[in-house]
Each structure stands twice: as C-alpha cells, then as structure tokens.
C-alpha cells in the first residue's frame, strides 16, 4: 500500500485542522440536510396529491354533502339512500380534535379524526370481490374497471384493505401514519402504556401505524368509534366509491333530498398545479443553499490544504508524487462527503419532520389539499443526495486543489503577470457576455419552466462575472471617496482591493445569496403589495357573506337595510377547459373597485360592459388561452345558454386563482340558474346587526359567514404571510451560509494580512482599531457586492414575476421596488455578515502583538 505513509500523516494532521474540518463537514452537512429536507417535504406532498385515495380508499369519484350548514347530512339520509339501493355510498364523519393523555394535550395541531362506515365499505367490490371457487371462465371479458383495480392492487393496498377490514371487526383500532404516532408518543411523558384519550378522557381505540402516503395529519377509524369518542360529531359526507355510470349518477342525483348535493371530486391536479409554485420556491431555495454551501466547501478545503502546505511540501521532498497526494486527498474528500451526506440526510429527514406540520398546515389551509407524511425511501434519498453532494464537492475542491498544485510546483506564490491579469479579465468579461446573452435569449424564447430556471441561473452568474470584473474599479472608487484625514481607512480600502482578489469565491457566494435575497424579497413584497392593493380595491364593500345555496342572502337581507351585491357564477367549458363566468356589478362604486392589468382605451368600456357588448377577462384567461384585448371570444349566455361573441374589453388582475375567468354584467345572470357563494354587503352598523340576526334565525353562522372587510383583509394577509415564512427562513439561512463562506475565506486570509496588521499595530494603532479596520475591509467587499446585487436582484424578481410566474400560472402582478425594503435587506445582510465574520476577526485581534511579530519574523 504505497499510499499508507501519506495517509498516516494525513490522519494525524486532523488534530491540527479541527476548525477547517469542522467547517467542511458542517457546510456539507448543511447542504445535504437542507436538500434532503426539501426533497422529503416536496416528495411527500407530491405523493399525497398524486394519490387519489381519500381516507385510504381508492377510486372515490364523487361525494354527497349538505348544501348548507343549516341542514346537515344525517344518518337517516344515509340509511334512506342505501335502502334505495345506492350501495356505492359510504358514510364519513370527521372532526378536528386534539389528542390527550392524562389530560395533557399531545398533538401540536388538531388532528382530523375520520370515521368511516367500514361495514358498507368492505363488501364493496373494491374490497372483497367474491370469486368463484372454480375458475371463472367467461368473466374475463366483462372484467370491470374495478376488478382491474383489484387485480392491480399492490401489496400495500392489500395491507391497507385488510387494516380497513379490521376496523369493522377486530378489537377497536384506528389507523394513522407511523410518523404521527411517533409524534404523539414522543409528546407523552411515559414511554409505554400510553393511553391516548380525547379531551373528555374517552380512550382512543388502539392505534395501528400504517405507512401510506394518503395518511397525513389524521386518524382513521370505524365510524362507530368516532361517534363513541365524539358523540356530537356529525356526518361530513357520503363517499361515492368506485366508478358509477352516468345512469347511476343521475338516478342518485334524482334521489337526493333537497338539502343534499352531489359533488364530483375535484381532481387534485389543479391544486397541485397551484402548490407547485410553493414547491418550486422551496426547491430553488434549497438548491441555492446547496450552491452557497459549496462555496464554503471551496473555502474550507482551501483552509484545510493551506494548513497542510508545509508538510505536503515535505512529502514532495520525500518523493511522494503529486498525483499520489491528490488521489488520496480526493479520496478523503469523497469519504468525508459521503459521511456528511449520510448525516445530512438523517438530519434532513428530522428537519422535514419538524417543518412538516407547518408546511402541511400551510398547504392545507392555502390550497385545500390533504398532505400526508409520504413514504421516504431512505436509500433512494441517500443515493440522490450523496450523488449531488459528491458532484458538488468534487467540483468544489477542484479550485483549491489546482491552487495547491500551483503551490507545490513553485516555491513562491508569484503575483500574476500583467498579461495573465489581462487574460483573466477577458475571461471574466467573456463569461459575463456569455451568461448575460444566454440568459437573455432563454428568457425571450423559451416557455419551459426548467429552462427559465436555467435562464435565472444565467442572470445570476452574469451578475457574478460583472461583479468580479468590476470589483477593483468599484473598490478604488470607494477608496477615492475616503478623505485623506483617515490614512488607516485609506490603507484599509486599498487592502480590501487586494483581498477581493483572494476572496472571489466567497464574494461570489455572498453576491448570489444577496441577489436571490433581494430578488425573492422584492417578489414577495410585490406580491404582497399587489395582493393588498387588489384586495383593498376589490373588497370595496363593508362586509362579505359567504353562503352556498339556501337560503339566498338577497332574500334574507330584504328589510334589513343593507345593500347586497350578489356575485353569481357559472362554470362553462371553453376550449376544453373549465372556466368561470362571474357576474360583476356595473355601478360607479364597483367600476372604481376594478383593478385592471390592461384595458382598452375606450371611454365606453363600462358602457359596453354594462350592455353586454363585451367582457372582462382575468390574466389567467388572457395568458393561459392566449387572448388579447380586442379579441373576440364565443361564450354561452349565462342565463339562456345561447352562444354569442363578445370582444375582450379589459384584462384584470386575479391573483392566485387557478381558474380562467370571464366577467359579465350582473344583469345577464339569473340568480335561479347560477350559483352564488359570495355576497358583498353595504350598510351601516345597525343594518348589519339586523342582517346578523336574520342570518342567525335562518340557521346560518354569522360569526364565520359574515365577515367584515378589514378582517377579511387581515385574514388573507395572515394566510399570505404564513406561506412565505418558510422561504423567508431559507433566505436568512442562505445569507448565513454565504457569510460563513466569507468567514472561511477570512480565516484563510488571516495569515496573509497578519504581517500587515502586525506592522500597523507596531506603529501604535490599538488592537481594537485594527480589528475594526479589518471588519471595515470585509464589509466594504460586501457592500460593493450588495450594490452589484441590487440591480440583479431587481432583475431576478422581474423574471420571477413576469416570466416564471407568467409561464407557470398565467398571471402576473406589478413589480414594486421599495427602497426601504432594499435598505432593510442591506442592513440584514451586513448585520448577518458582521455577526459571522466578527468571530475570526475578534479571535485574531485578541492575540498579543508580540506573537504576531514573532510569527512573522
């Protein structure tokens, strides 16, 4: 083993390079854990959307629910429907409750307790298809879709089915995800023999864990168990399980009593489309964090190799070949990366578990999608993360290793010659031109999301190049504005120029973090601003009432003195897509409330709209279906259903809606034909009080259904802010990582600047002052990077809004550049950097001057 002596020295050298090793490992672990946490969160959420199962039951195509909260779905309704032969129906009751043990609340947030009528369920063909003993012969042709399902069911589904079957008979059990069970067990003080109860101390059935992506924050049990635990619970819905023919469906719809309605299950694709923005966001941030971590790796390896330089030279003198040195060190990095990835993956999974309640809550509240824990294949995840990390870290150590190669080949670190400098300068400019033009071309010519992301990366990289090309000039500019009264500051400024050459990589990391920070912040800020503005303008009434179906609020409100504006809606097919036809009031008040993205210049816009001579469409309609102002579209009349042509008069903002929408004047709608959920209410407080009373009398719940506009606004913004909490967090982490990278670089540079600092201190400048000067130097680098990052950050948010959001979701919003926000980002960034780099600087400054002098001489 010819490498052995070298490896021996290498391992022993770890004693002296604890810091750089720790830094290396920490950055790799951060990168791996961040990446795997996001992968886990995303994949479990995606698995849940992909999974069309509801409460573990596959193939649910429709549900039956109450039309209004006032008249509930009852056991009697269920029995009556079943007696009429609608055997596909399975009753489900749900209630959202905490889990207790010894009167201690164990659950962090309320858990959905779901009770299923398993007796009805398990004799459905989906669960138990009676099979004749002798081989059925002629049945293969008539094999129904259900049977196919059954045949194709995986072992997991069989396990699920048998567990569901047990719910009916065995000692009462309830199914939940192992993760949730773990969480509950962990929250209880005692290790075993935990008795989970409801708040009123009714013992929960025995909990059985089942790894199934469809399970989320819920516990599934037999319906009788649910009603034992919560006698006041009520039926939520009847599931229509399995395929039913159109004939069966219409028979069922015909048989429904007045207070019930048949609802096709929303396919989750629409929701997942929406939530994609969230996942994209998360993924982008994780990758960003990963990349920035790689910059630390570069710096940490640099630091590591720097420390080794002396004995590596000795090794060379002893005749160990350079190739050998590199091979072993490369191998070392691979090993360290593998170790760090493994640790990172496990940390990531834990992190995902920690984060998942809030992520789930966000997704569930925002997009009404059920999010499960998902199944994570640890091996798969490990391989994935290890692969990415290895590629990353091998790329990352290329730079320090080539530098080492250079150092081992020459005994002296020669400054670059003028021609070399010019060469590098040209390379940097060339890469700026390359990235900038590639980004430009991509942004103007592609629509695929991933290519747009590549374009975004190009924009950021071109910014990096531009920064590197202009660092000296900009620093010189900074220096020139420092008055000669401050000779030390001037010297310091000059030094930072010299430093910039040696901290390129760390500065780039900081630049990337700062750019994306500015970009994301401006985007979110714009989105927020636009949403507030839009809501503010659109929510022009005093109050809003949400009520679907009977009784009609318009009728209720008669005599209360309030003005009710009804919003009527139809869903129609347009070019194979489901679109919304919405009514819009035409009075002056509501005209002003409209927020246009673009409108025809015509003064007659509202006149034409009122007369039904034209329509308004939302951005989703215009961008998604490719229509512009002045184009004519053919739509059915909301009342008569006759198709007629309508020119598009204007395009309006409609943030966050997944639907393409057409607005038509209210007088074209007939309240009897169209659905109505939202009623805008105007009136004085006393009238509102009367309305509240009549709502109460009608069995409605004014506390949740009658909402003051301000509260609505506040609720909306609360939901909005919650969504972006996570991205904010990731932003700060990225910044932190960039600062760490800078700190790493500083530690490497510490040795370079030590003689100079020694000299300055020997001239009688205090240690404190010297340290402040050092800090000033680095902050100066950061400030310049920040200044460069600003236009690129703005550009980035522009791309995010007008390209990526446009392509992904067919809507945009105005970009708001708030200087205060940018200053805030400056302050945060510099603060984070100061906090991090102050550590090595203070450490260095604490050494007595004499040590430095001895070290230098």
């Amino acid at each position, binding site marked *: 083993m010819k490498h052995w002596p070298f490896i021996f020295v290498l391992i022993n050298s770890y004693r002296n390079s604890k810091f750089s090793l720790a830094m290396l490992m920490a950055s790799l672990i951060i990168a791996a854990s961040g990446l795997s946490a996001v992968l886990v969160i995303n994949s479990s959420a995606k698995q849940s959307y992909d999974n069309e199962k509801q409460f573990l039951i596959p193939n649910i195509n429709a549900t039956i629910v109450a039309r209004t909260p006032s008249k509930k779905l009852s056991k009697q309704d269920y029995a009556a429907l079943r007696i009429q032969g609608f055997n596909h129906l399975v009753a489900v009751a749900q209630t959202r409750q905490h889990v207790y043990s010894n009167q201690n609340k164990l659950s962090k947030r309320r858990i959905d307790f779901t009770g299923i009528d398993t007796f009805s369920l398990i004799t459905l063909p989906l669960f138990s298809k009676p099979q004749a003993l002798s081989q059925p012969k002629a049945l293969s042709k008539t094999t129904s879709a259900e049977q196919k399902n059954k045949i194709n069911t995986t072992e997991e589904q069989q396990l699920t089915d048998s567990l569901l079957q047990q719910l009916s008979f065995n000692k009462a059990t309830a199914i939940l995800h192992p993760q949730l069970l773990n969480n509950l067990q962990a929250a209880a003080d005692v290790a075993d023999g935990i008795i989970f109860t409801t708040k009123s101390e009714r013992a929960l059935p025995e909990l059985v864990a089942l790894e199934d992506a469809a399970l989320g924050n819920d516990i599934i049990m037999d319906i009788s168990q649910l009603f034992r635990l919560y006698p006041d619970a009520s039926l939520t819905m009847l599931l229509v399980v399995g395929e039913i023919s159109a004939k069966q469906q219409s028979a069922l719809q015909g048989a429904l009593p007045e207070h019930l309605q048949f609802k096709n299950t929303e396919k989750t694709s629409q929701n997942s489309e929406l939530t994609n923005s969230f996942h994209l966001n998360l993924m982008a941030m994780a990758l960003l964090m990963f990349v920035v971590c790689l910059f630390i790796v570069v710096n940490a390896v640099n630091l590591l190799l720097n420390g080794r330089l002396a004995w590596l030279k000795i090794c060379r003198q002893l005749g160990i070949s350079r190739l050998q040195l590199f091979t072993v060190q490369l191998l070392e990095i691979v090993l360290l990366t593998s170790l760090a990835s493994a640790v990172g993956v496990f940390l990531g999974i834990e992190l995902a578990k920690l984060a998942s309640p809030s992520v789930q809550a966000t997704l569930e509240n925002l997009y009404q999608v059920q999010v499960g824990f998902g199944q994570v294949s640890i091996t798969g995840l490990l391989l994935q993360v290890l692969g990415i990390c290895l590629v990353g870290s091998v790329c990352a150590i290329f730079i320090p290793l080539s530098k080492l190669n250079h150092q081992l080949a020459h005994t002296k670190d020669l400054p670059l010659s003028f021609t070399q400098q010019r060469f590098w300068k040209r390379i940097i400019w060339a890469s700026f031109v390359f990235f900038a033009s590639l980004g430009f071309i991509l942004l103007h010519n592609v629509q695929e999301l991933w290519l747009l992301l590549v374009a975004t990366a190009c924009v950021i990289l071109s910014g990096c190049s531009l920064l590197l090309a202009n660092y000296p000039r900009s620093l010189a500019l900074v220096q020139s504005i420092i008055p000669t009264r401050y000779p030390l500051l*001037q010297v310091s400024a000059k030094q930072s120029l010299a430093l910039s050459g040696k901290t390129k990589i760390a500065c780039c990391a900081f630049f990337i973090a700062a750019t994306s920070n500015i970009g994301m912040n401006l985007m979110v800020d714009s989105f927020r601003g636009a949403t507030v503005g839009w809501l503010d303008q659109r929510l022009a009434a005093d109050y809003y009432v949400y009520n679907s179906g009977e009784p009609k609020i318009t009728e209720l409100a008669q005599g209360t003195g309030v003005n009710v504006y009804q919003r009527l809606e139809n869903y129609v097919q347009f070019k194979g897509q489901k679109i919304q036809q919405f009514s819009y009031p035409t009075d002056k008040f509501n005209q002003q409330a409209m927020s246009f993205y673009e409108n025809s210049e015509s003064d007659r816009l509202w006149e034409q709209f009122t007369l039904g001579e034209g329509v308004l469409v939302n951005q989703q309609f215009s961008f998604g279906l490719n229509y512009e102002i002045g184009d004519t579209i053919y739509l059915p009349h909301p009342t008569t259903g006759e198709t007629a042509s309508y020119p598009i008069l204007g395009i309006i903002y409609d943030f966050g809606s997944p639907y393409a929408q057409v607005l038509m004047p209210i007088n074209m709608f007939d309240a009897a034909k169209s659905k109505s959920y939202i009623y805008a209410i105007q009136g004085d407080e006393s009238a509102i009080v009367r309305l509240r009373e009549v709502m109460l009398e009608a069995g409605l719940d004014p506390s949740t259904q009658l909402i003051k506009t301000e509260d609505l606004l506040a609720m909306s913004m609360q939901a909005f802010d919650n969504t972006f909490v996570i991205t904010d967090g990731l932003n700060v982490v990225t910044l932190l990582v960039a600062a760490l990278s800078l700190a790493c670089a500083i530690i490497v540079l510490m040795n370079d600047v030590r003689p100079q600092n020694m000299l300055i201190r*020997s001239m*009688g400048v205090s240690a404190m002052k010297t340290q402040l000067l050092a800090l000033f130097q680095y902050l100066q680098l950061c400030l310049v990077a920040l200044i460069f990052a600003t236009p690129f950050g703005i550009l980035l948010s522009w791309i995010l809004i007008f390209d990526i959001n446009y392509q992904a979701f067919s809507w945009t919003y105005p970009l708001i550049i708030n200087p205060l926000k940018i200053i805030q980002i400056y302050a945060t960034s510099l603060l984070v950097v100061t906090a991090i780099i102050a550590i090595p600087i203070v450490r260095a400054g604490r050494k007595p001057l004499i040590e430095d002098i001895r070290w230098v001489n």
Partner: protein
Amino acid sequence: MFHIKKLTKSYTDAGEKRTILNNVSLIIAAGDSISIQGASGSGKSTLLHLLAALDKPDAGSIELSNAKLNSDSDITQFSEKQADNYRRFQVGLIFQKFNLIDCISVMENVMLPAKISGKIHAEYIQELLHSLGIEQHVNKLPNQLSGGEQQRVAIARGLAHKPPLLLADEPTGNLDSKNSDLVSQLLVDTCKQLNTALVMVTHSEKVALLTQQQWYLDDGRLTQI
C-alpha cells in the same frame, strides 16, 4: 534617555526554566547607536521587544526620561493604551522582513506612521528619502523594489514620525552582504544625522562594528565588547 535597570526575563521551555535576560542593565542616550549580538535564542529580540513595550519582563524596569514627557515613566509598567501611544510617538520599529504594506505605494508606506501620529513633516521626509537614496521610488509599490531598497524604505518609515529611538531587529538578515553593508551603513548614518538613538540586533559582526557601542548577550548577561 532610556535607562534599563536589572531586567530579568525567563521562559519555560519544555518544562525547563530558562533565564534569557538576567539582571540586564543598559543606558541608551539620545543619538547613541548600539548593536546587540548573540547566539540564536540568546534573548536579543526579547530585549528589543521589551524596549518596544511589546513584552513584559519578570523583574526590572526601563525608565524613560525625556524632556518632552512630563515625568519619568517605566515602560515595563505601561498599559496597552500607553504602550500604543509610546510606539506611536517614541519608537520606530524595523523588522527583518514584512516591513512594508504591499498594497500601498512606497510614499504612502513611509508616510503612514507620520499620519498615524499626526506629525507630518513633508520636508523632513523628503530629506530622509533623499538621504536613503530612494526618492525615485516613491510612487512604486513595495514589491517592485529589491530587498535592499525595501529595507531602506523601512528605515525611512521607521524614522518618519521622528521617534527618539529606533529599534531594528536583524534589519539586514534577509539581504546579501553587499546590500547588507549598504543598508546598515545608511541606517547608522541616518540615525546619527537625526540624533536618533538606535538599538540594532544583529548576527553580523561587520554590521555591529558600524555602531558606537557593541554589546554581546550570552547566557542572559549583557557585556560590552
């Protein structure tokens, strides 16, 4: 006038206590040029560091009596702030290497201590540069100069703020003999010309002979040759 009284300093090296300065006493008067020779590790540099208030002795004192100061002071008792002030106004330091900041010009390097102490004497510095023969290099960067030239700039820098005492630790240790002769001659001559006391630590007997007094440090004791 610096009065070194019974300085004692010892180190613990590998568990063994080693006294490198043992009751050392010396008087440095204005304009004196003193060289100190001795074997490696004999404590030459330590003595210099004590004089620069960079280190503290185990016993003894270094008393400073200067007309410009109001009272006699003991350098060895200086606080850090006092020490900084002392170095800023009273002492110039020249090292064997890294005497210059390489990102600023020769002129800026020379001017730096003067600017820090706030005592800028442009004519004096011109003169200084002239007498050291480096006035044609003022706008260059340090790494564009030869080693001998760099050390000459270092001398100028060490004297730029007109300190009464210049401490030089092996100022020619990195130079070839020809340059060594030239630089040390210039050093001694310039100090004499400015009436600045010079304490120079050196290995070289030849360099030592240029000074008025030659001292030898051995086994913690300082003896004049």
